[in-house]
């Protein structure tokens, strides 16, 4: 066992999608005082994200210090090897140790809350509450439902489940700070409040659980992940000021404060976390990516899985503070892949050499000695990972799938299993191929992209990515061929593909053709900074410095965090001999993205020219770290080491490297140009119109405006045991047509029978059961849990029976214990709280949906004085549905109301 530094504590807080561009103005206004204080006593900076920008992949990179190809989480869903179909990526899919496993192995205790793909909970030293905690529910027939595997150790489940916050618990006072005019929203037509309440209550749940653990459990490491900034941003960033021209003034006024409120709420939660952590704890606050909040906000979201990621920006946030950490400083070039190694360094634990990140040594007042081991994976001993073969049950998988679908990250979770499995497989391959491309391993991406482009040649994104991959591999001719097969002779017609075409021409040395294509791309979309970066590059190659400069400047004016444009500018300044400007722009570029060899090189040249030899050496060495065959960097270093009177050995090394590279160049160049013309088979690509047709068929709008059937059913609903059977009897007596079968006969609990229709219980899976001829207008008994599953195409009149919760609970316990189901173990208070919550939830929902009208009928009132209640029913349903309404009251047998007062009558 590796002994870790026991004195250290680390609190790692994840705010998905938090972005300095939104935060900075709030800090200036004094609206995020806690974060402001944290920054002042620590360091802050941008945190470069990884590609593709998908949260499960990214947060697992944070936790492991490894890219997705190593950690094995390749997106949201994967094929389910056990049950068929697809399932969300789980902790069983992760192929390497996360921080909490390494810490377990090192004798340290962790709390892990809400982390992506942490379900089912791993048996670590400490507590895990997984990302399935949102699935804690109350079922009026079965009691509290905590998805198995949500909490480790399992005996904490009951204690922690009560910190689940339900949307129905939120009051006006919670909502008004975000949406001051919430009361004016017509919830029949504007549904945005419903997801809002869900996101807020989920955040409150995670926070309550995290704080409960921090208060009650000893810990060395706590990791808490909050997804609310991302979710609020996806739902409401379009309304964030300044108003976008396509957002109506009315919507803007209503929702403009939501994002701001979300950040401020997080600042308030942060205050509590810091308070509980205490000053001796090292705090790391980070986000996995940023979120477009300015003029670059997209107008829509692409019709594809993970389409919402189009809103994600390259840079997240990073703040770190605590003992031994620098104060009030900015750091540069951090990437989220560096978080894991940095945490290990704080604990004085070794970094695995197979980790892709580096410890951020620049944050420490005195940089610690970094220890390494070959790999933590090879280290034996109990680390709290799952045993081989552990899988998640199909129900939980389904539940998580529904959650992802609701967020728009995955396609229809109800699709058939074969299709689901295929989609999951394709998406995972697509995502991992993008990781390879991003890591500059295009040869590993190629077979994956070729495969999926063949399987789905109607998806433009696969074709484009394959072309880009051919290009990155140097197969210029093949890339060009694929583009022209995809876009016919008329040209791509979109800026991204036109840009790729331009790059191909430039790589061949066709500057004229390249520039023409670039100008075409600019005309198609004058708002893409990348177009101007490319144009700048062409002019630079043509030695047109002023034109290059103005193109780069245009790119920066569109996106001031465009590292490539800043790098380009630094090259222009270097060529113009402007040392100061070179240094300024190169430093800005590498502060945004550290891996920019050319920017480091430019910096080195400007430093060398200014006589700053030591700094120049550092810059050139950094450039070589990212691009070891950069011959001019070796040249400079050879000269610097020689002239500096210093290091003859190093001078010699760099001279030799220079010669070696220069000698191998013609060969390398030939190998490169040989690739240019190499051709491969092309998949059969349908014509553009045909592709669009297939796309629309395969991926219909997730929320189609389903044609209304014109049918109108009467639903008798409410909590179980709240008088629904009686109401069915009354309707029958009143002459209403019922839809019932005789399956559940009268018993002691419902002496007059249940009046149920079994098929309704399958309505979620078989919505067509209501399509049968002749059912229109029938009355159906429908327990409250099923209301939300009723097909949207019909209209419903819902008679919602209410009864004092104590009575329902008693009545239900009597029945449950007779049926000897496990619900009988519930304690009464918990049962009542759950029932109340469930009923409020349903009422709230009923008020907000347009396809259901409802009235509430109070069971005791009905029994004591049926007259007025019957009149209300007639008014609600219409006299034609209740031709014999005079007979309805006669059905009531007051002796049925025997659970009154919460005391069961002797039976």
């Amino acid at each position, binding site marked *: 066992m590796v002994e870790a530094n026991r004195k250290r504590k680390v609190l790692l807080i994840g705010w998905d999608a938090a972005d300095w561009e939104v935060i900075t103005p709030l800090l200036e206004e004094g609206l995020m*005082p806690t974060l402001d204080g944290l920054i002042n006593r620590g360091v802050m900076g941008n945190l470069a994200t990884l590609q593709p920008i998908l949260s499960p992949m990214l947060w697992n990179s944070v936790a492991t210090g490894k890219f997705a190809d190593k950690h094995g989480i390749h997106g949201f869903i994967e094929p389910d090897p056990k049950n068929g179909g697809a399932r969300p990526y789980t902790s069983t899919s992760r192929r390497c140790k996360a921080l909490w496993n390494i810490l377990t192995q090192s004798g340290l205790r962790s709390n892990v809350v809400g982390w992506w793909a942490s379900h089912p909970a791993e048996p670590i030293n400490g507590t895990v509450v997984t990302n399935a905690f949102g699935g804690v529910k109350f079922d009026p027939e079965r009691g509290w439902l905590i998805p198995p595997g949500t909490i480790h150790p399992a005996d904490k489940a009951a204690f922690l489940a009560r910190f689940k916050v339900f949307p129905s618990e939120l009051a006006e*006072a919670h909502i008004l*700070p975000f949406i001051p005019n919430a009361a004016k929203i017509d919830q029949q037509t504007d549904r945005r409040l419903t997801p809002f309440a869900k996101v807020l209550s989920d955040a*409150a749940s995670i926070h309550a659980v995290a704080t409960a653990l921090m*208060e009650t459990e000893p810990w060395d490491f706590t990791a808490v992940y909050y997804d609310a900034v991302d979710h609020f941003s996806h739902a409401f960033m379009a309304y964030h000021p300044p108003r976008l021209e396509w957002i109506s003034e009315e919507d803007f006024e209503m929702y403009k404060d939501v994002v701001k*409120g979300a950040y*401020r*709420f997080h600042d*308030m*939660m942060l205050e509590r976390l810091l308070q509980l952590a205490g000053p001796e704890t090292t705090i790391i606050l980070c986000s996995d990516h940023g979120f477009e909040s300015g003029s670059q906000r997209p107008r829509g979201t692409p019709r594809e899985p993970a389409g919402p990621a189009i809103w994600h920006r390259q840079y997240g946030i990073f703040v770190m503070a605590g003992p031994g950490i620098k104060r009030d400083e900015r750091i540069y070039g951090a990437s989220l892949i560096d978080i894991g190694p940095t945490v290990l360094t704080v604990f004085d634990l070794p970094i695995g050499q197979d980790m892709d990140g580096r410890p951020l040594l620049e944050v420490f007042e005195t940089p610690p000695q970094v220890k390494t081991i070959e790999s933590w994976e090879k280290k034996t001993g109990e680390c709290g990972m799952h045993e081989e073969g552990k899988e998640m049950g199909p129900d939980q998988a389904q539940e998580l799938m529904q959650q992802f679908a609701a967020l728009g990250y995955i396609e229809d979770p109800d699709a058939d299993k074969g299709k689901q499995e295929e989609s999951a497989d394709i998406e995972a391959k697509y995502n991992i191929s993008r990781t390879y491309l991003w890591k500059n391993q295009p040869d590993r991406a190629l077979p994956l992209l070729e495969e999926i482009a063949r399987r789905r040649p109607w998806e433009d994104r696969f074709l484009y990515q394959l072309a880009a991959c051919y290009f990155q591999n140097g197969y210029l001719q093949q890339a060009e061929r694929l583009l022209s097969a995809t876009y016919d002779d008329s040209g791509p017609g979109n800026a991204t593909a036109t840009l790729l075409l331009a790059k191909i021409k430039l790589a061949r040395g066709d500057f004229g053709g390249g520039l023409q294509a670039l100008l075409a791309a600019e005309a198609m979309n004058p708002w893409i900074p990348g177009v101007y970066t490319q144009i700048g590059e062409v002019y630079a190659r043509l030695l047109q410095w002023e034109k290059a400069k103005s193109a780069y400047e245009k790119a920066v004016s569109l996106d001031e965090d465009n590292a490539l444009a800043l790098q380009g500018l630094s090259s222009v300044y270097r060529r113009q001999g402007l040392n100061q400007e070179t240094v300024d722009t190169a430093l800005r570029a590498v502060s945004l993205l550290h891996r920019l060899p050319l920017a480091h090189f430019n910096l080195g040249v400007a430093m060398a020219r200014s006589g700053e030899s030591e700094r120049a050496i550092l810059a050139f060495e950094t450039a070589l770290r990212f691009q070891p065959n950069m011959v001019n960097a070796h040249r400079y270093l050879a000269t610097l080491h020689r002239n500096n009177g210093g290091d003859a050995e190093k001078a010699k090394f760099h001279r030799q490297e220079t010669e070696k590279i220069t000698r191998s160049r013609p060969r390398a160049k030939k190998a490169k140009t040989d690739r240019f013309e190499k051709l491969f088979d092309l998949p059969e690509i349908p014509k553009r119109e045909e592709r669009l047709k297939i796309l629309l068929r395969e991926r219909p709008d997730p929320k189609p405006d389903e044609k209304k059937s014109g049918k109108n059913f009467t639903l008798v609903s409410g909590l179980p045991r709240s008088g629904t059977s009686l109401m069915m009897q009354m309707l029958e007596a009143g002459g209403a047509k019922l839809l019932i079968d005789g399956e559940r006969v009268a018993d002691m609990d419902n002496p007059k029978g249940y009046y149920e229709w079994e098929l309704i219980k399958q309505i979620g899976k078989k919505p067509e059961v209501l399509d049968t001829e002749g059912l229109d207008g029938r009355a159906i008994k429908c327990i409250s849990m099923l209301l939300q599953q009723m097909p949207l195409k019909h209209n419903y009149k819902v008679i919602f029976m209410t009864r004092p919760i104590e009575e329902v609970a008693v009545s239900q316990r009597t029945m449950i214990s007779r049926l000897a189901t496990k619900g009988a173990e519930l304690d009464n208070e918990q049962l009542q709280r759950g029932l109340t919550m469930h009923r409020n939830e349903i009422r709230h929902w009923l008020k907000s949906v347009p396809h259901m009208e409802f009235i509430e009928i109070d069971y005791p009132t009905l029994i004591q004085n049926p007259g007025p209640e019957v009149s209300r029913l007639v008014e609600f349903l219409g006299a034609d549905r209740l031709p014999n309404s005079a007979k309805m009251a006669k059905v009531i047998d007051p002796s049925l109301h025997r659970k009154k007062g919460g005391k069961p009558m002797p039976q």
Partner: protein
Amino acid sequence: MKTQKLRRNRLTSLSNSRWAAYATAGAATAIAGANSAEAAIHYSGVLNVSVPTGESVAHTFSLDNAAVIRFVNILTGSSGPGGDALFRIQGAAVSNMFAGTAAGAFRYPSNLAAGASIAARPFASMNSNFFATLAYGGGFAHSKFLAAGTDFIGFRFNGGSGIEYGWARVTMNGAPGNGFTVVDYAWGDVGTAITAGQTTAVPEPASLGLLAVGAAGLLIWRRSRGKAAA
């Protein structure tokens, strides 16, 4: 005892000024004035001052800003023997009003149920010399306090610093004598919403702040909600 440990920590959570800062900016204007931390309700305590039929002595109770409320019962004979139960608010420099209606020279306070929001009622000004009628002998159409039982009178006054709302609770003995008991009364400072029967400004906990406190805050919030619902 994990929960106790959680509860002990609750007050270290979030400063008032912090919440105030949060609540001030435009985003939260809608909740401002509901119940700010400084708001106070002044409560008389239980008085049970009897005002018997025909006593003809005005009982006066002080509010602030020079305002007072007064109660009296005088004998009346115009519609048979009986008592006239009367109420008046006076003394505040800018305005003295009650929740109710005016009919000609006469004023009739409304009888409010416990929990009614005072500020939301329609108000009428006092007639400069007359008391307002709670109940008159065997009853005229406008009198609202003829029946025996306990009800509330709402009032508002402005001594120059803004409007303050309040209530007085009376138990009527019934027509035609209309003797009554002044049970108690209360008023809230400027900017304080008050409901009939409310005696303390229990400021609604800063709800969002409580959620931000996490576990401990959530439990407090649920408890307060539980009480409100009870």
